[in-house]
């Protein structure tokens, strides 16, 4: 039996089921990161002193990572736009660039983490580092998850384009919504952790 409302929109919602599904998932993600942001506020306001992020963290590397992630959001939306224009090969290029940007982000993060560990700066060292590693670690896992989904649509999942291009385009749009959300979270994490 076919999955209903993957291509045609439901009359009552005006949406495909996939679109509703991804937005409900993102709503749960907002609450997940929201809880951690609330924890950050609680820990910071309850602390007698709090270090400025730039005294403990590498701002230039994080700035590069911000630029990389924003760029990946653009390539992701361009990948979807390419499918809307029926240009599959262009989609492949933009999706490939998105995956590479995600990889670059994680590699830079690896160097950041390595430097911290080398200096003996661990999550157990203080509350600042504890919340820093928790938030950026969880965010990093989201980048990894997004990359896995994107890689699937770049590779084996792209077969669907030949049989049902509209469904494939919708799937890429939904993957894009997740990817943009990951970018959006970083947009708030960057100033909160590194600059304040």
């Amino acid at each position: 039996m076919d999955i209903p409302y993957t291509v045609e929109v439901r009359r009552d919602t005006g949406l495909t089921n996939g679109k509703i599904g991804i937005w409900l998932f993102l709503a749960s993600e907002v609450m997940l990161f929201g809880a951690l942001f609330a924890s950050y506020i609680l820990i910071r306001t309850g602390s007698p002193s709090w270090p400025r992020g730039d005294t403990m963290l590498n701002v230039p590397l994080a700035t590069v990572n911000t630029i990389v992630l924003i760029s990946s959001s653009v390539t992701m939306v361009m990948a979807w736009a390419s499918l809307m224009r029926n240009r599959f090969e262009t989609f492949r290029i933009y999706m490939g660039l998105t995956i590479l940007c995600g990889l670059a982000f994680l590699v830079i993060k690896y160097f950041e983490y390595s430097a911290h560990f080398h200096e003996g700066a661990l999550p157990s060292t203080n509350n600042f580092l504890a919340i820093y590693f928790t938030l950026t670690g969880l965010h990093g896992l989201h980048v990894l998850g997004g990359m896995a989904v994107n890689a699937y649509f770049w590779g084996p999942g792209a077969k669907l384009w030949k049989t049902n291009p509209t469904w494939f385009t919708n799937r890429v749009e939904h993957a894009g919504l997740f990817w943009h959300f990951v970018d959006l979270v970083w947009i708030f994490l960057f100033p909160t952790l590194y600059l304040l």
Partner: protein
Amino acid sequence: MSDHTAAPMAGDHAVDIDKHVRIYITVFVALMVLTIVTVTVSRFHLPVPIAVTIALIVATIKGSLVACYFMHLISEKKLIYAVLGLTGAFFLVLLAVPAITVHDGFWIH
């Protein structure tokens, strides 16, 4: 934009997508400029309340640009807005919890 989710397109709709692509590029440039603004302002070492306010305003503008244009929220269906409205309300409650703890015991006395 959600109107475009139904099918890949050609002809008039392709022109529509071209218009959106131009918007994506503009938003990209705006996000880059705002990132530079965020980093530059942090170098002034302003008092924490002012620094937090500026950083959050800039981050909110950047986040709104991503949500509105890359995530197409500027022209989404009502159900999505309803879901996000409810999420936003609960999110604010979550953020308010730490503020309530500042008044620990307030309701008891």
